[in-house]
């Protein structure tokens, strides 16, 4: 499947801002089942300095600095991505989860030990017995890891309610777990916390999901949102495999991966520090538009009447 993705973030500042430093992680990754054919970032006002690099997790990162009084900042990322659906291993063919748990604590940097980086606490995710107990229901002795993880994924989907009003970006993962509700960011953090609490590596995936309009209704441009899900390590033979607890599914060709990290703090699409005293408002609009492969080189009009929706910076 080929997509054209437009992701626009607009900050408006109550008081003029004199200096801003920002980090953008908005370029879809190149992966075995995904290739990013085109990516551009349009920043207004024009930055004084820019520097691009791959961060620790291999995500394309752009640093930019704005100097001189400005009252708004608009960042538009436009990307063309080809995605094919991954072929998951048969869950029952994956190794017993205890086996994976032992392998990732190896004393040399084997592929397993490298994945082991993702079983420790991270800025947004702590481990605790509460999560371990919740996970233990699915992680029975010697159960194949993916089989158990799929069940955990489904339980989470059933036990937790999707509710954009329940949490915000600062809600700790324990709190969201107690509330039994939240948005995709919370679902992902909770699933990761459960897996890490029983010693398994899990990473946070930031990206997009193509949303299908209700039957008979037209597609609304800009009504999509950035999305988040989870990657679990199924042992060196099978590698990482994705789970989407918000939608109770295994990511298909409708999931577009942008960045990997330990939690949201590593992959936040746009992060910034500005000097100024006033409040700021942020509006995000995401549009994931399926394209025919030939559409790539035809001129594409940016959405003319994008309906924007206000949201917090958390991933939904």
């Amino acid at each position, binding site marked *: 499947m080929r997509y054209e993705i437009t992701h626009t973030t607009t900050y408006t500042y109550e008081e003029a801002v*004199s*200096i801003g*430093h*920002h*980090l953008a992680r908005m370029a879809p990754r190149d992966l075995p089942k995904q290739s990013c054919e085109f990516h551009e970032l349009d920043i207004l006002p024009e930055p*004084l*300095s820019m*520097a691009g*690099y791959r*961060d*620790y*997790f291999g995500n394309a990162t752009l*640093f930019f*600095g704005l*100097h*001189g*009084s400005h009252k708004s900042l608009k960042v538009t990322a436009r990307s063309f991505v080809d995605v094919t659906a991954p072929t998951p291993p048969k869950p029952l063919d994956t190794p017993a989860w205890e086996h994976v748990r032992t392998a990732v*604590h*190896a*004393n*040399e*940097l084997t592929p397993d*030990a*490298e994945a*082991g*980086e993702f079983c*420790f*606490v991270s800025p947004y995710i702590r*481990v605790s*017995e509460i999560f371990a107990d919740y996970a233990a229901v699915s992680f029975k002795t010697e159960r194949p890891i993916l089989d158990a993880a799929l069940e955990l994924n489904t339980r989470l989907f059933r036990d937790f309610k999707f509710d954009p009003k329940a949490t915000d970006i600062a809600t700790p993962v324990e709190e969201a777990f107690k509330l039994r509700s939240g948005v995709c960011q919370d679902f992902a953090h909770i699933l990761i916390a459960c897996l890490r609490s029983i010693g398994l590596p899990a990473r946070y995936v930031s990206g997009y999901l193509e949303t299908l309009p209700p039957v008979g209704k037209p597609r609304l441009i800009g009504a999509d949102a950035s999305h988040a899900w989870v990657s679990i390590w199924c042992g060196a033979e099978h590698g990482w495999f994705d789970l989407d607890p918000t939608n109770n599914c295994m990511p298909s060709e409708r999931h577009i991966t942008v960045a990997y990290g330990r939690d949201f703090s*590593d992959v936040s699409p746009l*992060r*910034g*520090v500005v*000097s100024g005293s006033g409040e700021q408002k942020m509006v995000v609009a995401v549009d994931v538009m399926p394209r025919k492969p030939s559409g790539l080189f035809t001129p594409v009009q940016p959405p003319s009447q994008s309906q924007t929706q206000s949201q917090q910076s958390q991933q939904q």
Partner: protein
Amino acid sequence: MDMPPTAESMGVAAMLSAYREAGTFDEAYASERMPRPAWASFLASLGKYNEADLHSRHESANRLLREHGATYTIYNQQQSADRHWKLDILPLIIGAEEWRTLEVGLKQRSRLLQKVVADVYGERRLLKEGWVPPGLVFANPGFLRAAHGIKPKRGSFLFHHAVDLARGADGRWIVLADRTQAPSGIGYALENRIVLTSIFGEEFRANQVQRLAAFFQMERDALRASAPQNRDNPTVVYLSPGPLNETYFEHAYKARYLNFPLVEGADLTVRDRKVFLKTLEGLRQVDVILRRVDDTFCDPLVLRGDTWLGVPGLMEAWRAGTVSICNGLGAGVIETPALMPFLPGLCRHLLSEELKLPNAVTWWCGQQRELDNVFANLDKYVIKRAFVGGAGQPVFGSQLSREEREKLLARVRAAPHDYAAQQLLSLSTAPVYEDGKIEPRPLVLRCYIVPRGDDFEVMPGGLTRVSPSSQGMVVSMQSGGISKDTWILADGPVEQLTLLLPPTIVLRPERQAGDVPSRVADHFFWLGRYAERLEDAVRVLRAVWQRLSGEGNEDQTRELAALVPWLVALGRLPDRFGSQVPTSELRTELASLIENHKREGSVHELLSRVRYNAMALRDRLSDDTWRLFNQFDRDANPRGAKMTVPDALQLLNTLVLDLAAFAGMEMENMTRGHGWRFLDMGRRVERSRNLIYLLKATVYPAPRNDAMLGPLLEMCDSAMTYRRRYHARAQLAPVLDLLVADEINPRSLTWQLNQLTRHASKLPRDGSEGRHGEEKRQVDYMLSLLAGANFSAIAAAEDTHPGGMLNLCDELQTRVITLSDTITQHYFNHALPK
């Protein structure tokens, strides 16, 4: 100095012969009464003193520490946390030969750790090849993923390295811990040395103790040499978390010693991937940052976002190679006991040498076999948090109850990689003089290493800490420890050059506006304003208390009756004092205006504001000024629990003199640089403001009470002049003439404005505003207002249709406040480009 022991005072020789080693290795004595060679000469000269001599030296040391401000706490009576720096007068002495061995081992350790940290952030071969377990890095919050792949252009991640050493029972020095993030204590070591050379000067010279000055000179050169650009004249700044940090004294002390500007995160800004210092003259590029802010606080953009101690974009500038940061961001990853068990192998692998300084036996609990061993032998170990930022004190396995033990095991089991276990050592002891006794106390020595070219240099000295009791197991300054100077003996005579120069003297070139950070100017300005506001408060209160003394004549009673409503009009007394209130209640209220530190505008509250601003200027105020500030504190505390009139008067009188001493010091001893200029502008602005308030309260609300005018002259220190000039009871017209229009009275408004216009013409400016800046235009306008006013006519009109004076006061008041805002906008808010 050499007095024979007297009957009252025991001879030190006798005290020393009563000294009994604790059964472990003693630093001073090989066996009973057999001093070790390095100590023999010092102990022999000590033996000539008596206890009274030691006592007086102990007192001098404490006095010096106080005067240097090593006792400083933010002036706050609620938190009287004892933060005095404690120094034992007896040094730790290490012989030349032993030191050479230590030095070699310490240099090797720095070299090794430098390679380890470079690999962790670079190729990671040590992880791939199994020399370091990956979990030790991955689980470590000191591992900054944002620093991954950065190769510091010049220098390395590890510049300042400190090593905590203890001596085992066999006499060998053993490493307890490494400090690699932003090691503390070196400034205190320097302070200890300066104090000890002053109380044991003779012994110090006779023992051929190695000097510290050369090391600091070398460190300074090495820092400058790490500059990626401007290498002939690099700008080096000392980045501190600020006055609220527990070791701020040391930051200020060392910054001043090295002659680097002491800055906070807010003084720096990143533009175009370069770091700049905001100064009075605008932005100035920073080439080297000596960093004392912890790793994760340094850049809110990529590290912890909930803090303003750092500089947004700093990591990016570092990545771009435009600034050298010492220590590099992320160096905290190797500040962990977890690494220690792997160092012998790493040393063989990376340096092809055996590790020269042995580690204390340490296990990282992140490995199963090691964890099992620790659990099985818990009594033998002290359990520590493995990584930087890990909360909680070390726990001694042998001291735990059954229940505590289970709790600890559960905690460790839940996150084993967060813990390390270290075998208990019986620390060596050294003689400590306390409470009239000399007794052995366990000690830990912290040594400091910095790179010098391809080699390293070890400070010939260190920070020795001894336990607060002879039975102590924990030795740290936080848990009430005492420090010692550390004397490293030289083989031969110590270089004469350093002997001639006491180590405090560092030539300081005159600072230009480009050297004065805006925040520093800001603090100077407010130091001036608050010192003046304090003086105003003290003088006003004194005028009131004087009239409370009870034996007052008729005049005094009349004046007091005028003063009380006047204070209400000023807003210094609550409204209820507008009507008759019993004197006892007034007295309570006036006492609260002195000592209630929570009350805005009280003497104690203002004193704490003066203190706060002075503290932020710690590296720019002279030692005498500090002595004076310490004096303020003592003088501002009432003697009794309940304040009597004589107590209050004595306190206020003393403070008037103290403040005069501060003003005198400012006038006579401060270089006329920009710091002084902003201090004096603050003072002039504040005095103008206060004067306007006092005058306004005199004429408004009506009716005016001329009995106020006498006390007013007194408060403005102009009563004598008035009497000499007019030989009459105070009347409004001549009072206005003297306090407002007079050009030669340093207390008059015209005088303040004349000073301000002079200052304003010398302020640094960017040339965009023509010949004179906005500040000067504003001051000159106020002067023209005063020059155009006919004060006899205004005073006469006040009797018939009042209002003219009030209008004038209101206008001046607004203009003075605007002036202060303009200065603030222009010089202190550099975050906003003009």
